[in-house]
């Protein structure tokens, strides 16, 4: 699929604050008791890219990144 972006979560850095969950609840979750966030899916569509970029910026632990998947 064109325009898809891969979501990368570094669980060694993640503090489980959940800032990303408030921005993209259908991509990130912080289950009760979990010290780190989990990915509900690891790809987002082109139209979700602004939200993903915002989540990446907003992560205080710098635990999020994105990458263009190989076509």
């Amino acid at each position, binding site marked *: 699929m064109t325009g898809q972006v891969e979501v990368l979560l570094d669980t060694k850095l993640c503090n489980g604050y959940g800032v990303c969950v*408030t921005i993209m*609840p259908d991509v990130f*979750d*912080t289950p009760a008791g979990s010290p780190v966030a989990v990915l509900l899916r690891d790809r987002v569509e082109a139209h979700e890219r602004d939200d993903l970029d915002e989540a990446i910026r907003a992560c*205080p632990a*710098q635990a999020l990144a994105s990458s263009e998947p190989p076509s």
Partner: protein
Amino acid sequence: MTNNETLKNVVIVGASAAGLSAADGLREGGYDGRVTILGDEQHEPYDRPTLSKKLLASQGEPQLHSLRTRERLDAADLTLLLGHRAVGLDVDRHYVVTENGDAVPWDAVIIATGSRPRTLLTTEAERLPVLRTPADLHLLRQAAARYGEVTLIGAGLIGLEIAASLSGHQVEVTLINDLELPLRQVLGAPVAEELRELHRSHGVDLLLGVTVEGVSGGPGSYSVELSNGSTHRTSFVLVGIGVDANDEWLNGSGVALDAGVLVDAAGRANVPGVWAAGDVARLLSHPSLPESTRVEHWTHAIEHGRHVGLNVARGSAVPYASVPYFWTEQYGRRFHGYGRIRPDDTALLVEGALDDHEYLVLYGSGDEFHAAVSCGCARSLRGYRKVLERRGSWREALDLASHADVVHDVALHTH
């Protein structure tokens, strides 16, 4: 593409979350000239929120979380000068003067010097500790381990996070606050009440509705005189009574100040070429904020910094309108809030139950929707956030709640 061809030299004062985000915004906006970031601390830029949220309770030596690796700074061709505290700004000749005596030239300057904690002096004129830097963290951790008992003056977000971290680790905590209901303005009354009870149930000794008249003594033996006539004795005192903008280095520079650098909606100060971002900036106009305000939350620093960087790069004056957001974690519970609660707001519980510690509360008055605060319901916030972003009405917010079929017919008043 930059529309700002005359711009070759941008200086960012402050290696802060706002300053670094401004640098990223400059690059994102197509500016490819020189970017120099002046940092006053000797540490590589690190994430401050973790100091109170996580590192206080960590085992072993706390590891600072880097905000930017050297690789990332190099990849964006950003020059970071640590140990360069700015002491003056020359707006005629376009220099930032540092305490080392350097004059750093600029075509545009972004002020991101942040804020610093207010503190109190003892009667012996010693400054009482605060929590802002890794050195402060070290001192607090040492004191907690040594004395097993700590008194916190001020129950803002920082004070409450420290209380939660320490009391979860067998440290006796006394929390003194002038208001009866800590964080009421941030969380709203019903949530603030729940949080207060949470602290009580974890054994934090809350001395509320009293002010501190004076503190004497030193580490190991302090006496805190309270407005109710009593004296509280404690081994260690830490102060968390708010912050002041780091703007005094601009006194006399010609940049307009009023407890912060006054900026318009685009982030511009009154002097051409001078911008400010993050918690040093006092926003003269913002759609979610009723009056001029400094916003002291993390994501504001990030978003406002980037926004100003984009405007500088593009030669644009796009108004900043991000909805204020905060989060805090206490006793394993995660609180998130969007918007700004006003004193006359009504509170409406739309999800969960307050005593379940999983709930979402909306705040508004008349047809205005002002804020949404969640404990453990972060997943539901997105919709309300979107409504706040487009200045949607109370009705639109409530419609969202009914779509989710979770409306409780419970109105809670903030008074």
